[in-house]
């Protein structure tokens, strides 16, 4: 109260300092505000475009729409692989997702067992942020709508409709067409640096990738291009608005047409029954594969959903190997089905087919006894008889006369030892041995490099190091039946409407027509001569439409010391392979069939021929021209059947009218000596 503590000059000084400093502070604040304005100008004027793009990226979401996978059809348009609607339940791994709670909510709506719950939780844990994880597939309509009604309460759950691959014929085409399955980590890694692959599509939970057969080989064609729906979303990823104007429709995958015929294929799998093996049917006019079956098979639809461990184990461990494509990857010694080829080699080498060799049931050569399959012997055999009876002794001696190189050349010309470009991978080449091959194969063992003379007789009856697959057997038979062209097989008829090259645009066979006809005569006798090795099993019952064939047995083990192989019972694994090749109609060949029954037992007639006959019947009855011929038999004279053998030109419409007498000019060189007539 007494004295002022602040003197006047001090007040002035304090005020002065304050004014200066306040001015400074105001200046600083102004500078700060200007700096903010500058920053605003930088963001809003200079970098505006960049942020506008980011903002649009936030606001609009292009939801990927997987393209419908291309259909796979057979030659007649029957669908072999198509798509069906599939109601799915998906959890999106959004920020702050309480997976446990969401699963508990879902369990109240749809049946989810504890195992599935655990699996989904684990997948969600592993999945990257925002990645969708499939909870359930194939919901019923009721379940689907139940979840959809509660969608607002379950923001991270989507119930949507996708498509899933379906194979209407189950197992019949499982090996050829293969199947699709979930994209594996390995698939992702392989496609990672491939710019032609749509990475986003690969990561889509509904997307499936081709894993085997046609589905794998033509995966990119079948896949199509993904579309998108444009939606406006909020920060939680919830769709606020649809924007149909911005939608991009998906491009469906291309359609792949196969040369296969669903009826023939189905019948082929059917006749295999419990047996293990393969059946291949080929059109001998153009090389189209009509059936290619491996048995036993499996239901490809199971793989689409994902196989359980137990299911996979059962398939993988079954002795008869259902997952192996035996028509392409199974290689077997051809056994006696190789004899027509050896016959051709002999004829080409100048052997007179009428020179007879006596078969006494065995033949002594090189210090050991070479047995014929018929222990009682066939007696005096020419080449025709030897094919008809499948006489081993005749072919032991004939092959020795012509040597391994001649046989190998003929085998290659008939299509053995080759891989064909049929569009799908997995073929095994097999082996056509010759001295040059021995040198290559036994590099480390010089003692084995020479061709031992004792190997040739085995070669002559289709044993030894010679191995073939079922497709090659069908090619051989087709070439023989065609009589002219070195046909190659074709499986893919067209891709996306583009016709694939035909198997008939190939050079001619290096055999004379005369020789080919002679050998075919022998095969006709196998099936139609009452003493032929497969006479009873080869009767088609289709009037004058007849089959020609050749039986075969491929030894799995040595029978040295075994007197009678017919009665020699053993376990399945040690039984002989049973083979049969055939073509029909004999007089105007259209279809060739090759059957391999793994461990089917001795003599191609028992297991192979009846199956070949059944398949051949379906193929013939599906052919309208053949049907016309059976239903209204052409008035062909019984007296001269050899004249019509090559008669009915394939292009002739046989509809009801008697075919013109083609025997006069059309066939170039039909030898009148063809022994078929005589054999009847």
């Amino acid at each position, binding site marked *: 109260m007494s004295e002022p503590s602040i003197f006047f000059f001090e007040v002035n000084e*304090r005020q002065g300092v304050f004014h200066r400093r306040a001015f400074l*502070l105001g200046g600083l604040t102004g500078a700060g*505000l200007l700096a*903010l*304005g500058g920053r605003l100008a930088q963001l809003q004027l200079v970098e505006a475009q960049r*942020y506008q793009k980011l903002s649009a990226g936030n606001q609009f979401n292009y939801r990927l729409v997987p393209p419908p996978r291309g259909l796979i059809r057979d030659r007649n348009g029957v669908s072999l692989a198509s798509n069906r609607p599939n109601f799915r339940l998906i959890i999106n791994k959004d920020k702050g997702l309480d997976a446990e709670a969401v699963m508990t909510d879902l369990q109240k709506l749809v049946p989810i067992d504890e195992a599935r719950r655990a699996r989904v939780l684990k997948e969600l844990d592993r999945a990257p942020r925002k990645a969708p994880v499939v909870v359930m597939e194939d919901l019923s309509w009721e379940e689907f709508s139940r979840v959809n009604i509660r969608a607002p309460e379950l923001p991270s759950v989507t119930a949507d409709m996708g498509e899933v691959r379906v194979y209407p014929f189950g197992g019949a085409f499982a090996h050829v067409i293969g199947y699709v399955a979930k994209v594996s980590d390995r698939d992702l890694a392989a496609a990672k640096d491939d710019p032609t692959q749509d990475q986003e599509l690969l990561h889509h939970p509904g997307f499936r990738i081709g894993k085997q057969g046609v589905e794998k080989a033509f995966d990119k064609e079948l896949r199509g291009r993904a579309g998108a729906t444009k939606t406006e979303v909020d920060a939680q990823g919830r769709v606020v608005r649809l924007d149909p104007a911005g939608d991009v429709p998906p491009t469906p995958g291309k359609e792949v047409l196969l040369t296969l015929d669903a009826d023939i294929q189905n019948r082929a799998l059917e006749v295999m029954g419990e047996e293990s093996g393969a059946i291949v049917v080929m059109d001998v006019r153009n090389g189209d594969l009509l059936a290619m079956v491996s048995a036993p098979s499996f239901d490809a639809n199971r793989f689409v959903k994902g196989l359980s461990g137990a299911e996979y184990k059962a398939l993988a461990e079954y002795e008869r190997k259902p997952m192996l494509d035996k028509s392409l990857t199974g290689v077997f010694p051809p056994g006696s089905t190789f004899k027509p080829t050896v016959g051709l080699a002999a004829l080409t080498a100048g052997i007179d087919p009428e020179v007879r060799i006596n078969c006494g049931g065995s033949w002594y050569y090189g210090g050991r006894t070479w047995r014929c399959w018929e222990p009682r012997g066939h007696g005096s055999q020419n080449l025709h008889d030897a094919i008809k009876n499948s006489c081993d002794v005749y072919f032991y001696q004939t092959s020795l006369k012509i040597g391994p190189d001649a046989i190998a050349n003929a085998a290659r010309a008939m299509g053995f030892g080759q891989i064909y470009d049929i569009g799908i991978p997995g073929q095994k080449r097999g082996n056509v041995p010759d001295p040059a091959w021995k040198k290559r194969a036994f590099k480390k063992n010089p003692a084995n490099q020479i061709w031992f003379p004792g190997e040739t007789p085995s070669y002559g009856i289709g044993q030894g190091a010679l191995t073939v697959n079922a497709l090659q057997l069908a090619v051989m038979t087709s070439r023989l039946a065609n009589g002219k062209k070195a046909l190659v097989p074709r499986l893919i008829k067209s891709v996306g409407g583009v016709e694939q090259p035909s198997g008939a645009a190939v050079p001619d066979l290096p055999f004379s027509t005369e020789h080919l006809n002679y050998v075919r005569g022998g095969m006709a006798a196998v099936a139609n001569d009452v003493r032929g090795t497969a006479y009873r099993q080869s009767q088609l019952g289709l009037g004058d439409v007849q089959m020609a064939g050749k039986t075969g047995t491929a030894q799995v083990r040595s029978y040295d010391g075994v007197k009678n192989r017919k009665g020699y019972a053993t376990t399945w694994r040690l039984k002989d392979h049973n083979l049969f090749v055939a073509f029909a109609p004999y007089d105007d060949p259209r279809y060739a069939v090759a059957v391999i029954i793994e461990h089917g037992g001795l003599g191609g007639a028992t297991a192979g021929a009846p199956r070949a006959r059944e398949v051949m019947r379906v193929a013939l009855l599906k052919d309208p021209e053949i049907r016309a011929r059976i239903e209204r038999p052409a008035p062909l004279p019984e007296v001269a059947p050899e004249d019509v053998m090559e008669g009915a030109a394939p292009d002739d419409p046989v509809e009801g009218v008697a075919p013109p007498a083609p025997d006069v000019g059309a066939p170039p060189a039909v030898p009148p000596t063809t022994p078929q007539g005589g054999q009847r």
Partner: protein
Amino acid sequence: MTLSGGLTRPGERDRPIIKFMEVDWTFCLVLAMIAGVGGLMLFSIAGASWEPWADKHLLRFGVYFIIMIALAMCDLRWWFAAAYPIYGVGLVLLVAVDLVGDISLGAQRWLQLGPLRFQPSEVMKIGLVLALARYYHGLSSDSARLSWRLLIPAAMIGVPFLLVAKQPDLGTAILIAATGGAIMMLAGLSWRVIAALGALAAVAIPPFIMFGLHDYQRNRILTFLNPEQDPSGDGYHILQSKIALGSGGLLGKGFGLGSQSQLNFLPEKQTDFIFATLAEEFGFVGCFGVLFLYGAVIFMALRIASISHSHFGRLAAAGVTATFSLYVLINGAMVMGLAPVVGVPMPMLSYGGTVMLTVMVGFGLVQAVRVHRYTEVTSGKGSLM
């Protein structure tokens, strides 16, 4: 201003009607404009709806505006007398919140007093300005420049700073310290001390960030330094705010058409990041306009401070202005990606009652300084001059 010429008779300035006329109404108009823009933005964010923010925002502004005018009528001597008590109450409350406060979002900031629920740190913002202004009022310029007496204002700043930092509310603590520092500087602190303190801060801050902070606080700072490191995690706020700002462009996307805020990409869009919403919908032009309004408020407030005849009034008004400026600058820098994310709202624009009340009470003090600019305030010893 026009009135001042004739107001020379003793007691004339104490008449309520004259006091009322002496309130800076231009200042009030600018404040109302800012609050109006805030209401407009809140209306837009809610999807063209007064609910749930815009109506409350404007209603609050109205109520607080009346409080501000009422406080402007209070004699500066009353403010002077109340300075230490308010500071003391603030200190007690800060200690109380430490002992019995509510824990919300991992920090002890709230105190429940009957039906009231408030943050004592807000009381301290006003209390500290008043207390420092009063202390410096009785201090000679030499002492204010450099003397042992300065340990007292340093302690007045340091104690609440530590208490608030302990809650932990680093944003408010820094605001309190910066406001206090600004007042000390305005009062005439030696430049050498300022330089020394600046150097000390530059040396001490990096180790403090690494060792003295909670994890979430450190992450915010590290994220600020490199926001693209984790765009959907901690960097999300900054990135989305920058997208909102940048995508606004020159003229903005239009009222109610800001996709970033309307679709919730922008976090805290109605509170701390409301400026980004404004930027998105009204563009550079709108933002610059609002920044200009803030600049006008600060300029006018500083002018009021400098025309005051009492040292207490000068420092009190300037202290409030400093607090307000810091709010604007820190929030602006944070929204534009120039500063780490700290919970500092844009005053008058952001939704939220606490800060608006503090700011309006502060402006009530500023207006009181203007209305009572000729008032003789007692000396530091409590005696009238």
